[in-house]
C-alpha cells in the first residue's frame, strides 16, 4: 500500500521522546520560518498577510529571532510597525457604548467595564491569524488525519504508537475528533490510556521516593516524569530541532 510522507515522519517521530505531532509541527514551523526569512521577505502577498496579522503570534515571533539577528526580521517588523503607527495617527477618543445594561454592569463590577475606543481597538487587533499558525495547523491536521487513517492494518502505526510517549492532551482531542470508526477509536484510546497510566504510575513513584523513608532508593524510569506530564497536559517547551 502506498504511504504518504507523513506516515514515515510520524513513524520516525514516535521513536523519539514527546508527542510525535508536537515534534513534527515544531519542525514544520522551523522550516516555514527559515523559508520565510530566506525566500519570502520581499513577497508582497506574504508581507500583506503579516501586516494584517499585526505581525506573528507571541511564540512564532520569538522563534523568528532564535537564530540571531536578521535583516529579514527587521524589514518585516519595520513594515508592521509603520502600519500600526499609521493606525494611531487618526485615533480619536470614543467612550464606551452607553447602554443601560453596560452602565449597570460597570457600576456593579468595575473590572468588567465596557471597553472604550472600540473603533481604534478593532483596527489594532489582528485582522488575520498568525500566518505561521495557519501553516502549523494545516500540518497538524494532515498528521492527525494520517495517524487515524494509518493506525490499524498491516504495517500500520499502532505498534510504534504503543512504544512511543503517546499524544499530548490537545492532539488526542483532535485525533478523537477525526476517528473514522470504533476500531480506530478503541485502539487509539486503549494505547493512550496505557501510556498515560504508565506515566501516572511514574509520577506516583516519584512522589513516593520523595518520602524520607524511601529517599535512598535509586531513581528509575520515573526520572523526568514531571516534565513529561507538563508537556502532555500543556504542550511542549518549544522544540525547534530534532535533537533530543
Amino acid at each position, binding site marked *: 500500500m502506498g504511504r504518504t510522507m507523513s506516515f514515515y515522519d510520524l513513524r520516525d517521530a514516535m521513536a523519539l521522546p514527546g508527542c510525535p505531532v508536537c515534534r513534527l509541527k515544531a519542525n514544520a514551523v522551523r522550516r516555514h520560518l527559515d523559508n520565510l526569512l530566506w525566500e519570502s521577505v520581499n513577497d508582497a502577498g506574504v508581507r500583506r498577510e503579516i501586516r494584517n496579522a499585526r505581525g506573528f503570534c507571541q511564540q512564532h515571533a520569538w522563534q523568528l529571532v532564535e537564530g540571531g539577528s536578521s535583516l529579514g526580521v527587521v524589514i518585516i517588523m519595520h513594515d508592521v510597525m509603520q502600519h500600526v503607527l499609521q493606525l494611531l495617527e487618526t485615533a*480619536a477618543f470614543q467612550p464606551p457604548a452607553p447602554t443601560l445594561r453596560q452602565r449597570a454592569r460597570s457600576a456593579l463590577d468595575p473590572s468588567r467595564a465596557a471597553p472604550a475606543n472600540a473603533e*481604534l481597538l478593532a483596527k489594532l*487587533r489582528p485582522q488575520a491569524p498568525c500566518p505561521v499558525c495557519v501553516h502549523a495547523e494545516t500540518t497538524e491536521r494532515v498528521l492527525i488525519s494520517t495517524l487515524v487513517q494509518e493506525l490499524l492494518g498491516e504495517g500500520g502505526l499502532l505498534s510504534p504508537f504503543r512504544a512511543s510517549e503517546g499524544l499530548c492532551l490537545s492532539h488526542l482531542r483532535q485525533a478523537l475528533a477525526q476517528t473514522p470508526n470504533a476500531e480506530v477509536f478503541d485502539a487509539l484510546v486503549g494505547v493512550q490510556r496505557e501510556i498515560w497510566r504508565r506515566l501516572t504510575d511514574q509520577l506516583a513513584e516519584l512522589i513516593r521516593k520523595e518520602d524520607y523513608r524511601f529517599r535512598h532508593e535509586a531513581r528509575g524510569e520515573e526520572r523526568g516524569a514531571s516534565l513529561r506530564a507538563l508537556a502532555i497536559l500543556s504542550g511542549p517547551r518549544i522544540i525547534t530541532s530534532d535533537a533530543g
Partner: protein
Amino acid sequence: MSRHIAFYELRDALAQLGCPLCRLETRVAERYLDFLLWERVNDPDLRQNLRQARGFCREHAWMLVRPGASLGIAVMLHDVLQDVLQSLNDAVMQPSQEVRRPLERLRMTIAPAPPPAVAGIVAALEPQGEQICPACVQCRVMEEVYLDVLLDSLSEAGGLLEAYQSSDGLCLPHFRRAVQRVRTQRVLDALLHAQRTVWERLRYQLGEVIRKNDHRFHDEPWGEEADAWLRVIEALVGAAPTQPEVPGRVRGEDGYERTGR
C-alpha cells in the same frame, strides 16, 4: 500625594528594558507559582481548579520548572492526569455512529469538528466550565490594577508620562488593553502621544538597521539601534513566553537584559 505601591513598581519597570507590563506580569506569575509550589500544593480548591482547567497554560506550565519543584509538579499533575484518565476510562464510541461516508470523512479532515459519537469524550477532555490556568487568572487581575494606575498617572502632575516616553512603552497587546480601559479624551491623548513617541523612535532605529546593512554604510558604527530587532518583536507581541536564550541578550538579576544599552 499618596501613591499606590503599583505606581512605584510601574515607575521602576518603566526604567528598565522592554514592556513594563510584561515585566511586571512575569514577576506576578513567578511569585504566584512560587507561592503555589511551596504553600498550596495540597490546597483542595486549587487542586479542583487545576483538574477542571486540565492543568496550566503552556507558558505558565513551563515557568513552574525550577530547582526543587519536581515533587510539587508531580503531586499536582498526578492529580490532573488521573482525572483525565478517568474521562478516557469512561469513553466509548457507539458503533452505530461510525463515520463511514467518504464526504463526511473528507469534511472531518478539512474542518475537524468532533462527530456526535465522540463529541462528549472530546468535551470531557477540554478544560471544564470557564476554568482557566490559575496563574493566568492572577496575572489578569494584576494587569488591570497596573493598567489603571498607569492610565491615572499619565495625566497628573508628577505622574509617569515622562518615564513612559523615555521607556520602551507598552507592547501592542498591552497597549490594546490599555486603550480599552481609557475613560477620557485627555488620558487617551497622553497615552497615544507617549506610545507614538516610543514607536516612532523604534521605527527610526529599525530604519537605521536596514540602512546600515547597505554595503555603502556597512562601515558605520552601531549605535542604540543595535538591538532594535529584538525590541520590535517585544513591542509587537510582548515579552518572550519561555524566555529563550536569544543572542544579544544576557540574563540580568530579574530576567533578561539586553547588551548595547
